[in-house]
């Protein structure tokens, strides 16, 4: 079956611009997670959705970052006024339930010039 998909695969933007990153989880998975991975490091948690609601957004670095999941399926991570330090690979994962295996998408590589 189809895995987690993310679009775009690469995004290059200029400092100060707004970007949206999209995640399509595995069908039927209620839990959805966003992580960010900098070069040479492990992924770091950003936000977790259970259904439509953000159950834990403690990993969002500041108020320029926001994510939604309006219908409990597709999620969008939104970054306002991008900074060069936001450059990273943004990974999305989904799982059937919390405490289960998390299946990751291929990621979106964001480059802020």
């Amino acid at each position: 079956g189809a895995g987690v998909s993310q679009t775009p695969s690469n995004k290059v933007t200029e400092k100060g611009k707004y970007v949206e990153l999209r995640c399509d989880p595995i069908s039927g998975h209620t839990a959805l997670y966003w992580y960010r991975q900098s070069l040479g490091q492990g992924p770091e948690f950003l936000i977790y959705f259970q259904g439509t609601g953000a159950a834990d957004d403690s990993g969002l670095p500041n108020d320029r970052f926001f994510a939604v999941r309006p219908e409990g399926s597709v999620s969008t991570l939104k970054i306002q006024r991008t900074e060069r330090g936001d450059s990273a690979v943004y990974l999305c994962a989904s799982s059937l339930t919390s405490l289960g295996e998390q299946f990751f998408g291929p990621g979106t590589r964001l480059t802020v010039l």
Partner: protein
Amino acid sequence: SQQGEEDPQALSIQEGENATMNCSYKTSINNLQWYRQNSGRGLVHLILIRSNEREKHSGRLRVTLDTSKKSSSLLITASRAADTASYFCATDAAGNMLTFGGGTRLMVKP
């Protein structure tokens, strides 16, 4: 912040040899998961071991978990060149996020 730490950070072995990677963590967990990543993208789930389990096998992979020492190990037997990748352990403490270590970069020479 990252809870887990992998050891070693880098490992180079010959094809056919076994590779052992270790992971230590700091807080109580529900489960621990191991992932593989090629070329900085696409984390592939390898194995999940729950806090009440001590050992788990999947093909050429063997994972152990020692909750008293807050540590886990991943053993890859009879390694192949295709096993070359970065390997991460990740802990799930509250069912809401995974906390990853910094990874072990494994190179298997043909």
